[in-house]
């Protein structure tokens, strides 16, 4: 029996298909051009001199150091939490799972400022005010890490869930029959199989943390040489009318973000992982 449905090859498209694809190309192309244009506008607005002066500024140097440190710590914390959460949510079925599922997505759907405000209010409660007497968090460096962690971890959890969903439970089951305990099966089979997802989760968490601004502004303040991270620098430089420095720092962040994207694609992760967002 011959095929009822014939599929035209890509080389010989029907005229109506051409119109369809032309429309898609126009819409997609407009968006891609807009993205490219914004990056190019920043690049052409600034000069190597602006970048050099920005890098020489002690405040900006402090912000770069604080950004790198806080993003790295946030990434480690996010992975530490996202791997077990992603694994449990994928492998177990329990009562109230839908509620936990919704809670895990809260940082993704909430406006960033609201996350900052919520953290600020949380740390006004009696037990956490007691904690702050011993270990200051609000308007100090730990508040930056916590604010970044709230959002970055949610994205890391999403990535780890997508990763574990792709690893068949059969692999662990076979490992169990081969003599592994649950923990051994996790360490010897699941984690190595998930390594690409872990790298993706780490790079995404790092990139999200680097760009976090709203919660940090509310929860950590914008004190120079104290709680100033790179997005805060852009905001502070803009507020005093120093557009050149603001654009130079923005460009630094764009370069960092592009490096992260190149890293992900270099590992071939975008092909092997379905990103849930």
């Amino acid at each position: 029996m011959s095929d009822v449905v014939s599929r035209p090859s890509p080389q010989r498209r029907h005229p109506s298909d051409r119109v369809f694809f032309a429309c898609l190309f126009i819409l997609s192309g407009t968006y891609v051009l807009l993205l490219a244009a914004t990056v190019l506008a920043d690049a052409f607005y600034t000069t190597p001199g602006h970048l050099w002066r920005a890098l020489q500024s002690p405040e900006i140097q402090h912000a770069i150091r604080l950004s790198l440190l806080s993003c790295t710590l946030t990434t480690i914390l996010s992975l530490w939490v996202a791997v077990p959460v992603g694994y449990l949510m994928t492998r177990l079925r329990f009562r109230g799972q839908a509620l936990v599922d919704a809670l895990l997505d809260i940082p993704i759907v909430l406006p960033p400022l609201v996350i900052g405000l919520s953290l600020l209010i949380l740390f006004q409660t009696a037990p956490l005010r007691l904690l702050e007497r011993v270990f200051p968090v609000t308007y100090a460096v730990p508040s930056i890490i916590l604010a970044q962690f709230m959002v970055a971890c949610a994205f890391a959890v999403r990535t780890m869930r997508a990763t574990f969903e792709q690893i068949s439970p059969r692999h662990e089951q076979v490992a169990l029959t081969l003599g592994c305990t649950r923990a051994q099966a996790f360490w010897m089979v699941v984690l190595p199989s998930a390594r690409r997802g872990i790298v993706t989760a780490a790079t995404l968490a790092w990139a999200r943390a680097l760009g976090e601004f709203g919660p940090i502004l509310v929860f950590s303040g914008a004190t120079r040489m104290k709680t100033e991270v790179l997005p805060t620098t852009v905001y502070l430089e803009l507020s005093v009318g120093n557009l050149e420095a603001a654009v130079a720092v923005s460009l630094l962040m764009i370069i960092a973000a592009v490096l992260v994207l190149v890293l992900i694609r270099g590992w071939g992760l975008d092909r092997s992982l379905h990103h849930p967002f």
Partner: protein
Amino acid sequence: MIALRKVSVRAGGFVLRDISLEIASGSHTALMGRTGAGKTTLLEAVCGLRPVFEGQIVVGGRDVTEEPPAARGVGLVPQDGALFQHLTVREHLAFALVVRRWERDRASARVDELAGWLGLRPILDRRPAGLSGGEAQRVALGRALAFHPDILCLDEPLSALDDDTRSEICEVLTDLRRRTQVTILHITHNRREAERLADRILLLRDGSIQISPHSA
């Protein structure tokens, strides 16, 4: 020997009740039945991957009903092989031996022996991504047999293979059984395959086990 005594096991919303059967040591038993009849559920219960809520499972004269999969001495070969993508063929064959902390020399000798039986010596350093379907199933068989299990559970290991490869793996299974005397419980949909390999064919139908009249 495997004995299931009035075993009841649940899989999702579906329950298999009062299943009893005995499989003699060193025999090859094929378990057939329609899709959804509960064959894999029963196999998982034997392996310890699915808890039974009634009854008793005995392997080699020992009640293993409450024992974890690791302690049962049951090797499993799933339909797709379920090879570990990050390990080489050699590491697959050695996996159970590393977990059991075998001495290096003893483990190497066992890996070499299995690789010889299964024709895996030329591909010991390859990873699953570079293996054909037949090679992958031979690796899965070697991995499951490495630690000298009493029982080998096969869950449709030949269903995804082409005819030639299927015939090749049938020969490998016959050869392995002759060498190891392992007791085999083999789920299959293919009657020809069952008749070629098994001493006895069981049918799982309407929640109970029947002996096929065509058993060898």
